[in-house]
């Protein structure tokens, strides 16, 4: 009986520790400047919680609530699909590393995808992001919302976008 009690207590302690660890991760993610403005996807890191095994086998992504089909309305999605006007911020948030690469090179698949979302000409947009690389990616300290604002500003001034 005594032993059983110990087991129960041990389990409770480890469960609480586990939950605390999880919470730590979430706050860590949300603490990266993904405020209410962004979609709060966090970063995609090999192995959530630094636990490679789990992440690799579950093929999971960060944020377990997102992308559920028929989960109703979340910050940026309704039933897993982006609400209109949210595609661009979500895209920038998740792809900012690849986007910075493409911008520095002046072209690439990620940049072309964003241009299409924003209804812009990929070629013109590529050269203007390259020219304004510093303004968009360095001065913003890679904050998604600021990147987005600066991209809009840059492409608005050169008429690369619109029908």
């Amino acid at each position, binding site marked *: 009986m005594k032993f059983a009690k110990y087991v129960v207590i041990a389990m409770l302690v480890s469960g609480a520790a586990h939950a605390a660890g999880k919470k730590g991760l979430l706050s860590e993610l949300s603490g990266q400047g993904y405020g209410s403005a962004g979609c709060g996807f966090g970063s*995609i890191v090999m192995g959530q919680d630094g636990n490679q095994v789990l992440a690799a086998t579950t093929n999971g992504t960060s944020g377990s609530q997102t992308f559920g*089909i*028929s989960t109703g309305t979340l910050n940026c999605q309704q039933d897993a*699909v982006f609400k209109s006007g949210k595609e661009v911020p979500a895209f920038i948030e998740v792809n900012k*590393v690849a986007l910075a690469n493409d911008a520095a*090179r002046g072209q690439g698949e990620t940049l072309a995808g964003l241009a299409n979302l924003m209804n812009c000409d990929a070629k013109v947009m590529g050269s203007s992001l390259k020219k304004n690389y510093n303004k968009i*990616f360095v001065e913003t300290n890679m904050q998604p919302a600021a990147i987005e604002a600066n991209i809009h500003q840059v492409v608005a001034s050169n008429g690369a976008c619109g029908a």
Partner: protein
Amino acid sequence: MKLFGFSVFLSAVFVFQTSAQALAAEADLNRVLKFAEDQQLHKDRQWRKLLHFETDFFRTTESQVDSAKFFFAPNGKQNPQAELQATIKAFFHDDEIQDSYEKAQCRFPARYRWLKKHLVSQNIKWPEAQCERYLAFAKGLKGQSVSLVFSSYYLNNPSSAFGHTFLRVNKAPSERDGKRYELLDYGLNYAAEADTNNAFLYGFKGLFGMFQGKFKAIPYYFKVREYNNAESRDLWEYQLRLKPEAVDMLVAHVWELGPGQIDYWYVTENCSYHMLSILEAADPSVDILSKLDQYVIPADTVRVLWNKTDLVESYVYRPSIRQVFFQREALLSPEESKELKILAKQIKIQDGFTYSENFNKMSAASQAKILDAFIDFIDYRYSKEVQEAGREFQLKMQVLEKRSGISEEPVKISIDPAPEERPHLAHPSGRWGVGYRHTTSDKDLALLSHRFALHDRLDPAIGYPRYSLISFFDLDFSYGSPFSGNNEKELQLENFAAFELISASAWSTLIPDHSWRFKLGVERTYNENFSPTQEAILRMGGGWTFLFGKLDVSAQVLGEAHYDGAHSENKMWVGAGPFLEAHYQWTPYLLSQASVQYRRDSAWDIKDYFKSTVETQYSFTKTWGLRGVYRNQRFLEEYSIQLFNYY
């Protein structure tokens, strides 16, 4: 007064009309029910597939979906006929439900489409409901075709072992320029909702169906960043021949499953299985699950899809950041390569870059090539730091800034993997073996082996990474007279690997990867201290592997722990020592391996143990191979030959 009489008359007409409508609807409902009964529609294959009505391992036939909300009939999980009747009734009573999302037609658009298709000839007036949320979902996915995506494994990311499969719903080309933007497609993913970080608990719960699986629609760019970039895994996209109508059906069916829960079984009803099960539900002409074994391994899925169905239209390879970097590195001249190494060294030891005089004298094209390779190098080598905006990421921003000042376009990277690297051409994952062993203590034994999955380093080197071994549930038995006493023949377990992994990624100055091995299982131990006995064993090793073309050489330190409760003393003992192994690929069908090992043990009288092994396998085809092994443990030599069949 007149007005009053008129309105009475109007409302009377209105009442009469609604009741007439209700009667007509009731008549239609009864006709549909009767037709379904007369035609035995509940026996239709697609209906059963839409319900995920299958016979499982325990010979129980019922729906695999565990949510009560997935069924209208109380016994719907077990009875497709009752479920069909209840579904039809629910479709006709949707007008009683206020919230359109909760209407039967809106919750089960695939069932509804299926039913209408079967009653096209009957002139039924269907009570069409407006389903805003479902329509928004279908419109967001904008499906035109479907690809099955396979993410391979990169073993320094160990448990990506079996790969993963999901579907991608391909959008119609952009109205703006007629081009396809794959990153903007949605992926349909089925995965376990894991609630544990403990690898062993995870494996256990996964194997015994204790996790719930969920379907999700995830933007494809999310998947690309996760696999290609964060985890350095290649993606293989197989475009399927699916009619637009089947694509709509697939989207409708995934919507039905969205809120549902299905038990996730790691080796049987897993991601691969359910990708195929929803394809079968969407298109009655698709028949693939019956061609697979009881267990479904993602790598097998693409092989069967490729070989045994005509579903695959074409495939596209999407290289991981690791492969892209190797490609960019290969484009460099020796002089450019030297500059890349200088930069790679600088990022380790200083907080900034000083470009050499040599670099500054180079052409813009050379500088761009070097920087492009370096950018991908940082993304691969420091992927975690880059994602988490750590030190290397800050440094990378300086490199990008430098790159943005060079107008030169990047070199387009296109990689077409050789046939032996294509997963759909791989050998089947299961393996039977029969053979013969002779030992110098004059024993002749018959050998019998079976491996559940997946690949070792002498199997035909096709479709799996050449630097890896992944063994899962590998059993080896011998049959013959034992070493001591009488000459009765007996069956002995020689080896059982619950799980064995070898990752022999090559070391290089730029990518100083370690190689390692791990085994958990039972081995029959032969040594000079006691007669052969089965012991539980855990073996781990680490070191380096060096690659010289077709030859790779591994130098590692191995440590192992043995446990056997039958020993009177030393039930548990450990040993450790150096290990050297050379692995040579003559052709993908002819491979050899030689190793030497010295071990110092913690217990017993004779504490020094030596072992050397030479093995060669020649495979006639992808399904038949012959393996010869010579093993020397000083006190005992053995020769064996085994015939393997891969299935």
